[in-house]
């Protein structure tokens, strides 16, 4: 049924509330890509089977990722009005037992991550708390509240507000959390200029990396002459190490659609395109469903919500080209051409897709829009730092204990993200650097960990905010190898159109490969700096212009590692194969033989239960033994 009036929306919301906060117990399994990759499917099946076997009267549902990917698969149990218990590290067997225990009235506290209590009886919130809630709170007294879990304590969810808490394929659950209600207000009460005014006041800046003020961008496009205008959602999340857009598309696709409709109304566009990477099959699936549902319910297409405003959205799939995240390349790709960038100006706001005025924002930016218009630009501007307002989602990954997606207010320090939220370094090792901004970014060393997360402050370090990838590196990460890695990435992804990028990256990579192989020469570092400066100044697009950043920041902060490679032919982190050798510690080796089994070169031998020996002549330095050894007996020097 089409939603046309406030009453229709109200009815949809009631249905959503009934499904989000049912009168029965509800089990929700997180089945985003990260959940599925760790076994959420068998967990989901097990919950269903056990419920059937017990004849238990419970509801089984699915949702996106709650951000704490490290503890996936996650199961949420809505056990009483207002109360949800979150269980971590589930498997099929545990899931079956959990169903039995919950139905018996046991909270199974030892498996829980946290509890979430939502108070209040107002619209969109569950009824309660009731006597049943009080009883379950007593049962769950040993489970920490979500606010008290280190990973969540400093977070503030705006863009990720619904991820993990609603069924992405159920539009009514989105509506129950306030979705499309603001759209009704916007279309019926707000002139386009006021919409743009709110976004400008919010201080929202592009979350894809460049950080351009969103409201200004919209205004340029609105004022650009032309009858036909386009809106594009850049979902070509290419930066390695960043995956917040995938999570939003998988877990809350309607937030992006609603933001786009609002933007289209403000700008005066009637056609929207979502350019999504091919590597995200589940995101494509959920987006497709969301678009179809929104069309069927009259939220996309002609005469949206009976307002007279019409807007359609099409999906355009990427085909594995990193450069297509750059806006002019992306538009070329949508037009069916090779994704090569072109010079700006003219900017897309004047001359974009099919030479028409076009506005491009990325997924996270669009997902923020409905919440900003719901609560006001002023509210959003009250969060964050002076020039960087609101929150930003980061993917905290690499050598850190709590990997996952975190949404924090701007201005928080890197240290708080890595240590308070991320829980510090894996295996008790030493922090070395955090890499932000993907191949356009840089490596920030320990002494700058108190730098606040803010577009300008991060740029001052030589890195950039970028799309939000935050890869934590420890003392076993070689910074020269990291620089080599990024240039190797960029060498393959450079489209080849302009010479500085195509040739400059190639030359820098050659130098770095030599250094990693112990063939570096005096003066190589200075040469890298020279080439880097030239590539930065003369490249056509941002891919080339920022490509030297990983090299320049690692030279700036870790010059000693470069020198160790060049002068001493040593890789201090024990990564660059030509410069390291493996051996086995006689003291630590228990003679278990695990390394013998995995060694592809038959380089390790020894009697059972006695210290083994490694033949350097046979060793191919693949590292399989080190990966396998549980006793830390494989030494790298």
């Amino acid at each position, binding site marked *: 049924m089409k939603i046309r009036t406030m009453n229709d929306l109200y009815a949809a919301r009631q249905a959503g509330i009934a499904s989000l906060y049912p009168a029965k117990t509800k089990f929700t399994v997180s089945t985003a*890509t*990260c959940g*599925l*990759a*760790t076994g959420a499917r068998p967990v989901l099946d097990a919950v269903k089977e056990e419920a059937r076997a017990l004849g238990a009267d419970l509801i089984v549902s699915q949702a996106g990722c709650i951000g704490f*990917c*490290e503890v*996936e698969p996650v199961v949420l149990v809505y056990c009483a009005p207002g109360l949800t218990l979150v269980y971590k590290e589930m498997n099929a067997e545990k899931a079956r037992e959990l169903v039995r225990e919950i139905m018996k009235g046991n909270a199974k506290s030892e498996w829980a991550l946290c509890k979430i209590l939502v108070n209040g009886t107002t619209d969109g919130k569950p009824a309660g708390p009731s006597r049943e809630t009080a009883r379950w709170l007593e049962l769950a007294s040993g489970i920490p509240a979500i606010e008290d879990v280190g990973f969540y304590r400093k977070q503030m969810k705006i863009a990720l507000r619904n991820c993990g808490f609603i069924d992405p394929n159920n539009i009514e659950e989105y509506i129950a959390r306030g979705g499309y209600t603001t759209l009704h207000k916007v279309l019926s009460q707000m002139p386009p200029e006021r919409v743009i005014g709110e976004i400008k006041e919010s201080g929202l800046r592009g979350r894809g990396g460049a950080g351009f003020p969103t409201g200004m961008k919209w205004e340029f496009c609105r004022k650009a002459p032309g009858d036909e205008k386009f809106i594009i959602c850049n979902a070509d*999340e*290419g*930066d*390695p*190490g*960043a*995956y917040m857009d*995938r999570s939003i598309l998988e877990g809350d696709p309607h937030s992006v659609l609603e933001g786009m409709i609002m933007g289209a109304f403000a700008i005066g566009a009637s056609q929207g395109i979502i350019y999504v*990477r*091919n*590597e*995200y099959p589940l995101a494509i699936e959920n987006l497709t469903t969301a678009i179809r549902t929104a069309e069927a319910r009259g939220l996309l297409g002609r005469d949206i919500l009976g307002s007279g405003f019409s807007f359609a959205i099409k999906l*355009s*799939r*990427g*085909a*594995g*080209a*990193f450069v297509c995240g750059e806006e002019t390349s992306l538009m070329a*790709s*949508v*037009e*069916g051409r*090779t*994704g090569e960038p072109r010079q700006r100006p003219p900017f897309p706001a004047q001359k974009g897709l099919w030479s028409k005025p076009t506005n491009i924002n990325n997924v996270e930016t669009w997902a923020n829009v409905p919440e900003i218009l719901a609560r006001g630009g002023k509210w959003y501007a009250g969060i964050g730092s002076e020039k960087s307002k609101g929150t930003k989602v980061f*993917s905290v*990954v*690499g*050598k850190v204990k709590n*990997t*996952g*997606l975190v949404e924090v207010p701007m201005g928080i320090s890197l240290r708080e993200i890595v240590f308070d939220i991320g829980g510090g370094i894996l295996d008790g090792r030493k922090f070395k650097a955090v*890499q932000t901004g*993907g191949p356009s970014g840089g490596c920030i060393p320990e002494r700058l960990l108190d730098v606040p997360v803010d577009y300008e402050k991060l740029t001052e370090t030589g890195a950039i905010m970028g799309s939000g*990838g935050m*890869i934590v*590196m420890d003392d076993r*990460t070689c910074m020269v190898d*990291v620089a080599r*890695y*990024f240039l190797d*990435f960029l060498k*393959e*992804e450079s*489209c080849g159109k302009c010479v500085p990028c195509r040739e400059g990256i190639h030359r820098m990579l050659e130098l770095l490969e030599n250094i990693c192989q112990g063939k570096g020469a005096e003066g190589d570092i200075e040469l890298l700096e020279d080439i880097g400066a030239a590539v930065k100044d003369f490249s056509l697009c941002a891919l080339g212009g920022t490509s030297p950043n990983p090299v320049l920041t690692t030279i700036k902060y870790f010059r000693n590692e470069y020198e160790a490679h060049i002068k001493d032919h040593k890789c201090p982190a024990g990564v660059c194969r030509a410069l390291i050798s493996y051996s086995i510690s006689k003291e630590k080796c228990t003679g278990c033989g695990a390394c013998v089994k*995995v060694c*592809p070169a038959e380089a390790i031998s020894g009697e059972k239960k006695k210290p083994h020996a490694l033949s350097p002549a046979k060793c191919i330095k*693949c*590292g*399989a033994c080190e*990966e*396998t050894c549980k006793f830390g007996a494989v030494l790298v020097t």
Partner: protein
Amino acid sequence: MPAEASLPKLVDEIVERHRYEDYALVGILQDLQKELRWLPREVLRQVADRLDVPLSRVYAIATFYKAFSLKPRGKHLMLSCQGTACHVRGGARILENVERQLGVKTGETTRDGQFTVEKVRCVGCCSLAPVVMINADTHGRLTSDKLMKIIKKYE
């Protein structure tokens, strides 16, 4: 993969689904590859013919974008993620080990036609690094040992 004779029919169907629009070229090739797993020469020719664009343009698209393969692919496509998080957590080692165990290099297909091994720049599952994608399934927190067990399940 459909029989030889039905190939031209498949191309026609897919091109028609995209209403013979040349801007849909990327989408057309994606749909074709989804069915065929790779893009044979005669298919590219026929697409160029039906859209009335030069073959060079179709070839440019098919070679610019990494998702397209102009060589036959095996029954299962294994994409080894080489994103940054996977790199610092040993993704390259996993890939090497796969190459060794399956006896192929990156970009090649095993002799029995079961697996094609390719590398990919980040599948967006960084929290579970190192990661590989086999067909549409993502497998995370891998060690070389664990991956070999997973591969066996597909054989």
